[in-house]
């Protein structure tokens, strides 16, 4: 700071006032220009992610130039400022390791682009739309309209699932049918459901996978595809259609059954049938 104090000491009072005022005006203009540029840059054709990066970069660049110019007006050599900034960065780096780690992770995220602004991602327990990728954190808007801020370092270390990266998505519906049912008939009914739903893609073809013999039902996986924007509608409409169609075709979706077995050597359990008790309303 001595160089700044020395250069100020060498000025007369009037000069000092004039230069400080001029530097302040430059910084103010820089702030205004930075904000105007960030808002007015004609980037509508670009992806929101790229818009965000270019707007931020332009804003910081304009502010940096204004600040450097203001310092120059105060008679400060830019070389000295840059040298001091380098030293300051190292000092801050040691003091704020977490922030620096987040910062570097943020740069990696911007370069790697596993997701962009507007994508829907799932990180640990949070699922939501990416509303910004900042230098220190990623902000998500969850579907119940909450803001989740995830530090960039956590994003780099965790498994991130991008739900909207590819244009089409598969919905896997687990369905159980009674052991007495004819599986070829069940398959035909399920395929009809997929065929009659216009948002269900004909290709890739719907799949029926035999999952196994369950405790109470034969478990099947019915997998259908839709455009990512129709996924929720497909999920609801398919499950409704399966229930409705199974009822129409007399296909049973069984609830868990329990068979009470007392062992082969024991006597059968005695069952006694008694008259129904009178309910209080009847009496």
């Amino acid at each position, binding site marked *: 700071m001595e160089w700044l104090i020395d250069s100020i000491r060498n000025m007369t009072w009037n000069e000092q006032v004039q230069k400080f005022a001029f530097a302040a005006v430059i910084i103010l203009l820089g702030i205004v220009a930075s904000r105007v540029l960030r808002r007015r840059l004609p980037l509508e054709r670009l992806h929101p992610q790229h818009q965000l990066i270019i707007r931020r970069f332009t804003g910081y660049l304009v502010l940096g130039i204004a600040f450097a110019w203001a310092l120059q007006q105060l008679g400060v050599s830019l070389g000295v400022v840059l040298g001091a900034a380098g030293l300051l960065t190292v000092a801050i780096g040691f003091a704020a390791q977490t922030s620096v780690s987040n910062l570097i992770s943020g740069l990696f995220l911007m370069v790697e682009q596993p997701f962009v602004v507007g994508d829907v991602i799932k990180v640990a327990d949070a699922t939501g739309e990416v509303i910004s990728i900042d230098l220190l954190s990623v902000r998500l808007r969850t579907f119940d309209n909450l803001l989740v801020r995830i530090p960039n370092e956590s994003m780099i270390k965790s498994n991130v699932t991008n739900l909207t990266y590819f*244009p089409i998505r598969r919905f896997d519906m687990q369905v159980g049918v009674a052991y007495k049912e004819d599986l070829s008939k069940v398959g035909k009914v399920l395929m009809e459901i997929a065929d009659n739903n216009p*948002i269900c893609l004909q*290709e*890739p073809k719907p799949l029926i996978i035999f999952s196994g013999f369950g405790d109470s039902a034969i478990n099947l996986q019915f997998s259908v*595809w839709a455009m990512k924007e129709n996924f929720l509608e497909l999920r609801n409409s398919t499950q409704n259609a399966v229930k409705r169609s199974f009822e129409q075709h007399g296909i049973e979706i069984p609830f868990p059954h329990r068979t009470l077995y007392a062992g082969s050597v024991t006597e059968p359990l005695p069952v006694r049938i008694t008259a129904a008790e009178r309910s209080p309303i009847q009496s």
Partner: protein
Amino acid sequence: MNDAGTTHKGGSEWWGSFSVAERSVTQWQIGPLTLSAQRLAGEWRIGYQSSDNPLADTLKYASALSSEGLEQMANIERFAISEESDEIRLEPRTADRPIVFRPDLPFHVLPGEQASLYVGSPLWVAVSSGPSPKALLEIPSHRPSDTWFGPPTAEGELCYASRTFCRLALGEVTRRAHRAATAVVIRNPSNETLPVLRLKLPMERLGLFMSRDGRLWTHDVILERGEGTEFAQLEIGEGAPRSAPDAKFLVHPRVGSGGNRMVRTFGSLFS
């Protein structure tokens, strides 16, 4: 439905301009689509619904109905309009994205051969109002299923899906007012048999024609298989279809034809 108005203009022409008296309801049945329009002060109310049968061949027009017919529709939309015109206009349109046709039975084009076949596709109904027509909405006469056309699930194109019998004789193609026929020529100059498992046609690039017998046609499509690839040279015919040379031009394509180009059109994908 009141059949007092019966089929408009006779034959299978359901498009054109119609006058709708204020507060009364006019209703059209175009194949599986039922469309109702009501003119109220400062607004149009349009109701529509489709039946489950995509091949339904009903064609009816009725005017001066009560508003009950409109209220029972599955979908009703309102459009504010300041013009005092009672004129509503219907226009046929081709699908708004490509259609992938799957032959009902495996269809092959032998080496050095060419096949001329006919496929049918559902039409969209564009509704507009006023002397300088303002678009109100577009409705498919039957909404085909979505399908994905592309080798991996990461890349490709969203299309509509349709089944086709790949009719080779025009006489076998049933004429339906809500569907247009497309004549497709597939050339296979290569030394290998071309199995046509799927056929993607750019319906949004095809215009519409009407032949003398009232059948709706699109531009012809000529596809020539590229050597050793699934890509084909796509050519969209100029002028009336060859099978109906006297057909009258009706509607421009939604988008420019884009000239001849190599496209992925025969798929042996996902199989």
